[in-house]
């Protein structure tokens, strides 16, 4: 059975095509203004790449913020459930999933059968999300993609105590003014993000193995900081960013 999952996030849209237990392909693009177009666009592009026809896809599940705008999907399911399903597909042993995206971060625990047991989500506050990192990258005049490798070179991460994104930004600016090294500041930023997420994770209770998904999982600095904060090792799949779409495709199998 061939299924597809389409994840319309706040920043990027993702699509995955799945043939039974095999992932045929995946794609990531910016969402843009129009969620409906983003869904259609990425789906068509992926099909073109795979040289497949839309009629060959039996079931489609949409997920993410724009899930209800994907009118051609058979069903819309929340990204929380889909991230659980995606992680379970990649590694059925996984019990905790930490998904950090552009404007949301979520922690979910899953039962041994892959269904979601409990979850927590950030409140309306950017601390502990991809947005927080973006703001900091701007303050540092750095490329966010360099954050991970740079932070690993830090000898002693700076202390950034404020939870509030605006206050934390001014802390970062004063650290720059004091001549603190770029590596240490970035490592401090990662610890700040990790501290928010680990607090949320402990609220639902962390069970190993732990997998991290979402775009921020590509930042090795955040992953390491989270491992230290939680005292566990964290698995990051090469499909971390498309995990929600993958989960949607998995959910489509059982529609």
């Amino acid at each position: 059975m061939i299924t597809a999952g389409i994840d319309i996030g706040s920043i990027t849209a993702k699509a995955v095509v799945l043939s039974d237990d095999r992932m045929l392909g995946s794609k990531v693009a910016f969402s843009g203004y129009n969620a409906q177009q983003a869904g259609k666009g990425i789906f068509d592009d992926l099909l073109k790449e795979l040289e497949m026809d839309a009629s060959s896809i039996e079931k489609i599940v949409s997920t993410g913020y724009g899930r209800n705008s994907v009118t051609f999907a058979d069903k819309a399911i929340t990204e929380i459930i889909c991230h659980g399903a995606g992680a379970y597909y990649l590694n059925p042993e996984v019990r905790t999933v930490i998904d950090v995206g552009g404007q949301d971060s979520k922690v979910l625990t899953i039962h041994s059968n892959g269904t979601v047991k409990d979850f927590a989500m950030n409140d309306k506050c950017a601390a502990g999300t991809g947005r927080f990192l973006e703001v900091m990258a701007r303050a540092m005049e750095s490329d966010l993609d360099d954050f991970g490798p740079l932070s690993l070179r830090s000898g002693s991460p700076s202390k950034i105590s404020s939870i509030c994104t605006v206050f934390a930004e001014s802390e970062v600016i004063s650290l720059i003014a004091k001549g603190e090294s770029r590596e240490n500041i970035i490592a401090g930023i990662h610890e700040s993000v990790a501290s928010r997420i680990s607090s949320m994770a402990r609220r639902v209770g962390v069970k190993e193995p732990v997998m991290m998904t979402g775009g921020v999982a590509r930042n090795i600095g955040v992953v390491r900081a989270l491992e230290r904060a939680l005292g566990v090792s964290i698995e990051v799949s090469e499909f971390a960013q498309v995990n929600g779409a993958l989960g949607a495709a998995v959910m489509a199998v059982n529609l």
Partner: protein
Amino acid sequence: MTDTDKEKHGKKMQSDGKMQKIMTGYYIDAKTAGETGKKVAWITSGGPVEPLIAMDIIPVYPENHGAMIGASKMGADLCQKAEEMGYSGDLCSYARADIACSVVDGGPIGGLPRPDMLVCCNNICGTVMKWYEVQARYYNVPLFILDTPFSHTKYTDEAKRYVQRQVEEYVTFLEGVCKKRLDRDRMEEVGRLSVEAQRLWQAVLDTAMNKPSPMTCFDAFFHLALIVTLRGTQTAVDYYRSLLEEMEQRVADGIGAIPNEKYRLLWDNLPIWYRLKWLSQKFAAHDACLVADTYTSAWCMSLRYMTDEGNFLDSMGEGYARAYLNIGVDEMIKIVLEMVDKYDVDGFVMHSNRSCKPYSLGQYDIQRAVQKERGIPSVIIESHMVDERSFSESQTETRIDAFMEMIGQKR
């Protein structure tokens, strides 16, 4: 001013060391209560401690502990731990730090000794009641609540009768837990010592009327510990008597608390415990001395209502019920204006404390009243008193600098 003049100001107080010694001894006693067979009661800072002292129960103050956690900069970690336990980050940071500390035995003294009972007086907030309910469930020990009706405009006869009945219920509660009777003569003696310590504490604070002031509110925050924890003991009376002597000597020698007192300020609300040094240096750099505060004087407020000293149990109720945080905003305005005049201050520093709604909500109205009645500048700085994660140093610095510029221009 000559250099020798400069040197004599801003000197450390001799009493500082004495205080540290007393508090260390007090916490050792409390932590070893299990071995000495004494009972331990946790009590709120505004609660009636005197009957505990009279019953030989060791009073322990989670709020004082909270202040210690804050001053040791351990608040953020413990507060975060509480959030992991499900407590909202918007809640009082004393409560969050204490609740987490019970579970992890953290903090500067490795946690407080386990309580045999909890005594909660809601004259400072509704938060303490919820906080003590949490601890009553955790430790599974009896909780006594002294419910002091809020006196928005006056202390009603109904409230007075209710509080009076509860004072007797309180004694019965203690007698039940300790399985012994309260010695009423001892009670009166403890009451007398409590009133005496409060008078001495007020006299210490009053020395700040001198110019230059021999002490700052930061000193008061430090020396406050005994009037909170050991009020009703000879130790507290002796300590404050010697502190008063030291202050009076400073006044006689013309020693000021800061090197060059040019401006005098009034502080409102609890301290920002993890930034005491930073704040005091910040203001001193502007030649501004925070000579008084609305917080530390709250522990002598009951003197206003202590009508019958010969009968402490009967007269303490009103003093406790009419605590500074249990009265209306207009009553608070009156007290603030009295302090502005008494200490002859040039400006008003208000700490808008996310941890303390009864203290902070209404501050904007108080600020306007002070501006209107006395025409002095004011500044508001915001924090959670022991959770530094909500504090912005650079923003606070900007506000203080601008405020001091305003005061300077006014001169």
